[in-house]
Every structure is written in structure tokens, then in C-alpha cells.
């Protein structure tokens, strides 16, 4: 492992200053579960590692009438242990619960998962489904970017030199809404998603009609995808298997996967539809107040 400098700033300004002008030779460490491994194997060789866990803005976990705020360095286990998140923002809790084991979950952060910008990141489709907004701070102040616009290519994103992802903001959840995230992996544990689907639905007060829906797809394109038309198609439709099948076909059309060691193009395209159906059904069930059992690895 190559030598590097380490800094642990206590304020956002200090952190931005450390990053500014480093032109990529500084890397942010939140949980470090990917970063340290990449440094160890030589895939990354930063001169400076900036530990951002000590910055208070990045540790916020707050739910209020104006929505839910999630600091970029908050660990997965804080998220899935929060009862409000589990009931209101279920898809996010679902995704945090299946990343790694307990040790990883107590360090890994949703912000880090997003900033790594891997196409198969488990939390990103959930963030897309839940309509998250990225709050980014940098030398020129603060800006906001919709989460579906954050990743630009495998491992790349909109962050400019000196910029840090500070938090993710979510709009308040509506009545009769439900969400779910699920991935397909070849084993039952310890795998990267071959296809990942996050979906959120809002039902009418009769709980029979879909008011709106959002679907996020992972591992089927160079970046996580917002299958916008598939979600839009569901607006106003009855919350039944037929509607869901149509939306799943529409989502499948959005998938533009590749063949690789984790799955074939044929497989990913087909399973995008299968998984979208299964995830939408679970999201609808949750919106109706039913509990959804999720078996490991399915």
C-alpha cells in the first residue's frame, strides 16, 4: 500500500479547503469500505485521505414535516435502525440492510455509496425512487442536484474539484405510499447486484389507484437509471398486476446493460422486468399497509 497523508477536519470549510486544488489526488473517507480496499490493492493511490466523519453536517439524520435529511457520512446501520426510515423510506432501509455484513454496515455510508458512483450501487436506485436531492458544498458555495443526475459514468459524477456531498434531502412521504428495494444476486449473500430495482408508489385514499410512482434501476446501464416513463405510466392506473406488468415492460426498455462476469445482457434485460414487477408489488403492498417479507437473496 502506498503511503498517504491523513486529515480529519472538523468543519465543512476546512474540508473544502483541503480538497480544493488537489485535483483528485485527495479522496474523501466516510466509511472507507471501498476506498481503503482500493488503496490497498493499488487501484487508487491518493496523496491525501480526508476523513469527513467528524463534520457535523455530514452526520445529520433528521426527519421533520419538511422531509428527511441524511448526512452523507451516516452509516447504513444507523439508517436501518431508525424506525421512521424503516416505515416511511423503506426502500432505503432495504438497501442498507443488504450491503455487506454487520461490520461493513456499521461503517459504510449511503453518501459514499453514491460518490463511488458504481452502476450497481445498492442504495442509489432506492434514492432515485424516493426522490432524493444531493446537497453539494464547494469553494463556490452550495448547490443541489437531483440524485438521478448525480452519476455520469462508471465511477464518475458531477462533483467538481473541491466539492463534497454534504447530505441527501428527501421530500416528506405522502399518505398511502410504500417503497421497496431488491436486487438479484447469484448467491444468497456476499454479491454485487446483477440487477437492482428500487420503487416507490403513492396510492389514492381508496388504496386501489396509483397516484404516482418512481422506479430506479441499478446495474443495467453505465449509471443507475431513473426509469421515469415506467413510473409515469402507472399514474392513474389501478394498483393491480396488469398495471405493474406494463410498467415493468416499460422499465425493461430503459435497461441498456452489458455482458460481464456478473451476468449476461440477456439475463439483465429479462430480470429487469421480473424484478421491477416483484418490487412494485411489494411497494404497493406496503402502501396498503401490508407487511412484506423479504427473503435473503431473492
Amino acid at each position, binding site marked *: 500500500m502506498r503511503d498517504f497523508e491523513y486529515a480529519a477536519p472538523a468543519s465543512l470549510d476546512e474540508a473544502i479547503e483541503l480538497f480544493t486544488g488537489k485535483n483528485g489526488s485527495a479522496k474523501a473517507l466516510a466509511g472507507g469500505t471501498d476506498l481503503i480496499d482500493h488503496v490497498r490493492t493499488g487501484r487508487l493511490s491518493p496523496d491525501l485521505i480526508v476523513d469527513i466523519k467528524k463534520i457535523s453536517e455530514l452526520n445529520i439524520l433528521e426527519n421533520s414535516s419538511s422531509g428527511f435529511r441524511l448526512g452523507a457520512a451516516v452509516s447504513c446501520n444507523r439508517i436501518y435502525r431508525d424506525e421512521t426510515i424503516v416505515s416511511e423510506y423503506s426502500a432505503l432501509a432495504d438497501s442498507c440492510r443488504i450491503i455487506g455484513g454487520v461490520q461493513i454496515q456499521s461503517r459504510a455510508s449511503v453518501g459514499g455509496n453514491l460518490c463511488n458512483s458504481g452502476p450497481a450501487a445498492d442504495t442509489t436506485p432506492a434514492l432515485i425512487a424516493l426522490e432524493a436531492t444531493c446537497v453539494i458544498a464547494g469553494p463556490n458555495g452550495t448547490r443541489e442536484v437531483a440524485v438521478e443526475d448525480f452519476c455520469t459514468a462508471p465511477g464518475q459524477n458531477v462533483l467538481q474539484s473541491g466539492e463534497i456531498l454534504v447530505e441527501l434531502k428527501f421530500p416528506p412521504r405522502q399518505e398511502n405510499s410504500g417503497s421497496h428495494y431488491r436486487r438479484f444476486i447469484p448467491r444468497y*449473500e*456476499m*454479491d454485487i447486484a446483477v440487477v437492482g430495482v428500487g420503487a416507490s408508489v403513492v396510492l389514492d385514499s381508496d388504496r386501489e389507484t396509483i397516484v404516482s410512482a418512481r422506479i430506479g434501476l441499478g446495474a443495467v446501464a453505465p449509471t443507475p437509471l431513473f426509469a421515469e416513463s415506467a413510473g409515469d405510466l402507472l399514474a392513474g392506473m389501478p394498483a393491480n398486476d396488469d398495471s405493474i406488468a406494463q410498467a415493468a415492460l416499460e422499465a425493461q426498455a430503459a435497461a441498456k446493460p452489458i455482458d460481464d462476469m456478473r451476468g449476461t445482457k440477456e*439475463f439483465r434485460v429479462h430480470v429487469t422486468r421480473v424484478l421491477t414487477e416483484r418490487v412494485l408489488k411489494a411497494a404497493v403492498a406496503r402502501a396498503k399497509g401490508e407487511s412484506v417479507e423479504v427473503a435473503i437473496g431473492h
Partner: protein
Amino acid sequence: MATIDKPDAGAQTADSRKYNVIGTRPIRHDGTDKVTGRAKYGADVKLTGMLYAAMLRSPHAHARIKSIDTSKAEAVPGVRAVVTHADMPDPGSRVAELGEGAVNLRHLSSNVLARDKVLYKGHAIAAVAADNVHIAEEAANLIEVEYDLLPPVLDVREAMQDDAPILNDDVRTESLAGETGDKPTNTAMHFRYEKGDVAKGFADAHLVIEREFETATVHQGYIEPHNATALWNADGHITIWTSTQGSFTVRQQVSELLQIPVSKIKVVPMEIGGGFGGKISVYLQPVAALLSKKSGRPVKLIMDRASVFEATGPTPGSYIRVKIGVDSKGMISAAEAYLAYEAGAYPGSPVNPGCMCIFACYDIPNGRIDGFDVCVNKPRTNAYRAPGATNAAFAAETVIDEICESLKLDPVEFRLNNASKEGVRRIDGVEYPRVGMWETVDAIRQSEHWKSPLEGPHRGRGVASGFWFNCGLKSSASATVNGDGTVSLVEGSTDIGGSRASIAMQLAETLGIAAEEVNPTVGDTDSVGYTDVTGGSRVTFATGIAAYEAACDIKRQMVERAALIWDVDSQDVHYGDGTITGPGDKEFSFKELAAELHKSGGPIIGRGTSSAANQGGAFGTHCVDVDVDPETGKVEILRYTIAQDAGTAIHPSYVEGQMQGGVVQGIGWALNEEYFYDDSGVMNNASFLDYRIPTCYDVPMIDTIIVEVPDPEHPYGVRGVGEVPIVPPPAALANAIHNAVGVRMRQLPMSPPAVLHEILDKQSSGNGQSS
């Protein structure tokens, strides 16, 4: 444990017990150290002044090395030694017999440090020893290598073509008849076995089915990476601490490669975190020794996981064609097979055992088997648990299932009717002694599992059988009687599966003492007689015989000693069940006589060896239920039962452990494991994240049925149990998948994308899958 609940797992019951110790389940002697973490593995070795080493490996799958410049590495502060092939003597093109198989020493040497060519990505080129591993890694990356890139060939059938890139200029096709080809080739060996009249056998058949199969390269997946720490002392003696399946084979390989007498090399076997055949060949040991020679310091060299995948010895990918004919009653009339196995960079795939095993379960009157050992630009393959047999069984047992389906025959009845028995001659010529193939099938037929109907959509059941040899080879043991009546046993078999316990139990049984009264130690090469590798399912059998002989030697001496003390003729003294008796009710317990030894003539040491005993071989039959998700192709294993002939189960828990462990590895091989290469020969999944061995969530509890058909060649009837359980799982699972969703899987792994592809193919063709 998972054993189906029969008292003590074998033929023995408490009343009819033949033995006192054998068949019981004492706590293993090395158990406390293992569970408390005190056991010392290869990476735990720490010596004063020790240096750490790192290896430079080829980024290319096939290239000629034009030059290697190590000057920048040598200039890094903290670097103490750098070695390349120039530091290795040229052993010439000699073949050395290494206990379990022979090896061309020039090939072995070039595999340890590349000579003029690199033949696979990850091929070792140079090594650096430095004050710490970070310096060593940095310096290794500063070594400059100039390459002439050559096109790689990665597929066995492509490598057999006349216009394929040739890996080794010195390889010619050799045949069993002694013919040698006249031009360089990748096809190193052509094996052919024939029996009866094959054409007539097929002509007489009522049904003939011929199918093609492909299997991917897979790795043993042991958790502990390869390691070696070496000290080349100022007096010219070398000590090597390493985890290995055979300390004597490491000694011999290092001796041959460095051209140093074996007497100047001591190999100290550390505890081993899994081997499965992959820790027999040397990789790091000669390099660590050379770095120590150059630096004058002890040097430790440990592989990282990616190198373990890319540069040690996986088991081959293969192409297999099988043709079987049966008469109208379902009796096999003829069988034919063509097997082409990827040897990797240098010749030596296990295609020959694959040929010998492919039809070994059945009595086949007419047969022909052709096998080809073919070099490709992948790491040199090595043994992996029943090497060659799993690929072969996948093909043969799937065709048999298809025959049973076509003729509406019960697959268990078919196997009972065609089973190999005593006196049956295999196609490769061997005539069986008493074997237990029929009994393992019968055990499945009688099992609760087989008798329970399987219900539900997309669920299916599959059955498959398998065979693997048990080899004898050479083993040594010595045992010292302690004054307190215990016995210290030193044996030479490195313990990868609980063999310390099972060998100590055979000594205890023979002496009539308790298993806990034996202290077994695995000796280093200076402390115990020559012992071949822990492989070939031989240790409990052969080293067990050595321990039995050592115990008999102790018994003889104890009798003589008692006669001396009692002043009677030793003819009148008898040894039975831990008690020594003489005329006139004279009696010593073992413990009492042990206490007298120092006063009556000194210590008693027993010695025992075994050599070249033949074993009958081991058979197993497996039954598995699966649930296949028809929308994703994912296979969930609902239930698994394995019946296996263990001869006599010495320690039933470890027999069950071997059976379960073999099944788990077979499941991994069947469902997800594969080396995934890009076109340039780079393995894309050289990590446990994307090389998917099963996790505990992926396998159910595996029920075991120990069948005991004693092997007449062993004093207690032991058969080897370690390898055969990996043989049937891929075939059993393929047959279960077909039963569940109607698709025939003829390639491994049967991963979700592969299974889904067949399902979609079947749906789009609108009827059953065409062959």
C-alpha cells in the same frame, strides 16, 4: 451433526461394537488450538531479522520476455535482495516423480519464475525481499520487463487446432503406446482406453444418446493463501516453514529446482487452511529460499488472493463428449467418451484420471475413451479433490439421466442394475476388488429422502453417482510410550481434514488405549520417515496402516518387556485390549507396564511404514432436490443426501465432514464458480466477491449416509473418503434442474444467466428443448 440418525453412523451399534475406539467421535487433538486461534499457520511464522517479499507478475497472458531490468528495484532503500529466473539453475528437461504424479522440471522451474516466456496473466517473473512488504511491493513494481506480446489461446478446442498459438516449443503429442509427435503442439498427451467391441455394442443398442459438455476452469478456493518462509543458513542448510499438503514433496521439489541434496533441506509443515490438491506443487518456497540466500536473512513470502486465483493451480476447464448405448432392458451395451482438458500453461491436466473415472461406476462390456491434455494460456492446473472426475461425471451421469428419462427407467434402479461390482473390469483395464457402488445406490433407495415425494411447481429431484481412486503410496509413523501410559505419535501426513485424530485413533485401537491417550504430532522432514502427500484420499488408509504397524511394534516390545520383568518366555505373554498377561495370572495394564519401562531396559519406540498398498476405491451416490425460479434461473437447493462407502468410518464426524465439504465444493462448481476471462486472457473475477464459492446461505444441511463395505487391504477396512464426494454434485444438480424446469444443462457453471438462457430458449421454441 447431519448424519441420518443411526446409532454411530455405521454398521456398529453399541452392543455389536467391533471396536473400542474406531467409530467413536472423540474431540480432535488439535481442536483447542484451532478454536482458540493459537494454531500456527504459514502466515504466523515470525523469525528474528525476517524480511518480507513481494512478487512481480506478468500482466500479459502470452508474451516472450525480451529483458528484465531490476536495477531500479535494487536501488530502493530497504531492498535486500531481488531474484529472477537467472538465479534458478536450469534443471534441464528432466521428469521427476513427485509421489502423486510426475513433473517436467524445466516446466516446474519456469512456472516458479518465468524463464523466456510468460504463459498466463499472473505468471511470476521476479521477487524482491525488503525490510517490509510495502517497500518490497513498491520495488517489485519498479522492475522493468520488456515483452514481445503473443496472441493467447484460452479455449481447449481452439488450442488443439493446427494454427493455434503454441505455448511450449518443447511439447510434442505423446500417446500411451509410446508414440511421439514430430512438431510443437499444445496437445501434450493423448490417452486411449478400449475394451470389447464398441461398434458392435452400439449396433446392438436399443437406444444411443450422445451429448457434448463444457465445464469452466474452477479453483479449490482454500481460505489460506500460499505462503513460505525460508532461512538459508550460513552452513548451507535450508529450513522452510510452509503450509503444504506434503512436506516431503516440498523438500523434493525445492531440492530438484535448486539442485541441492534433500538432506540439506528441512521443511516444517505449518497448519494448513485448506489445500484440496492445490498445495502440493511449489510456488513460493524456492523463491523465498533464493531470496534468503541472497540477503542472508529469513524471508517470508505470502500470496495475495488475486495471485492465488491467477497463478496457482486451478482444475481445468474441459470439453467432453459422451455416447452411451443401452439395450431395451436398460443395460449398458457400449459407451464412448472424448475428453479434452485444459492443462493450463504446462502439460499435466488430470485428463487421465478423468478417462479412468468417467464410466467407472458401471459394468460396461464395450467401451472406448480418448483423453487429451492440452496447454492453454491459463495457470498451470493442479489437483483439485478427485481431479478430473467431476468434469467427467457431469457428462456421463447427465447422459445416463437422459437415457432413464427416454426409457422411463427409474434412475436409481438403472444404477443398481448396471453398478460396478467385484470382478468387473473397467475400460482402462483395472479389475475391481470388493467395492461398494451398488451399496451406495441402495442406501439412497432406502433413504427417507428418496422415499419422500417432492411436491410443488418448478421443483425437481436429481441423482448421480461417482467414483474416485484411493491411492496407497508411502507413509511413516513412530510412537513413543510415555511413563504415564500415554503414547506420543509422530507421523508425516500434514493434517487437512482431521487426520491426526483418525490416525491416532487407529494407533489407540491397536494398542487398546483411549484416543485421548495418544498425542499425535505432524513431524517435519527431519523428524519422521518419508511420507507422501496428503492427497489421493490416502492418509487415513496409508498413514493409518503405518500407525497400526507402529502400534504392533510397540505391542511386540511390550510383550518382550513384560516377559523380561516376569522372567518368563515371551511366547507365554499375550497382549489383548490394552492388557499384557503372562503365566500364573500375571498381568500389567498398559499404564502399569509403561511406568516400569525406565527401570526395565529403557524406552519403547514403535515404528511403522506402509508402501504401495492398493485400495479398492470409493463410490458415492447423491440425491438432491431443487427449486428453480423460472423467471431468473436461480437454483435453490432444498434437500441434499449423500451416501458414500467409507469402508470403515474411523471418526464418523470427520467422514461426514469430508462428505459435506465435498458436496459444498461440488455445489459451488455446479452453480456459480468459473474463471471469467476477457479475450486478452485477463481473469476478471480474481476475488472471492466475484468468484462465487457458496456461502452458508447457499447450501442446506447435507444429510450423510455412511455405507461401510470394508476394504480388505486395510487392517480396519478403511477406504479414503476425502475426494469422491465432490464428484456427483454437478451431475445430480443438472438432473434435478431438468426434473424441475425441463431444461438440460450441459455446461458448467449452471449459473442463473445460463439456466435462464435455456429456459427462455425452451419457451421461444415452444416445445421441449431440442438436443
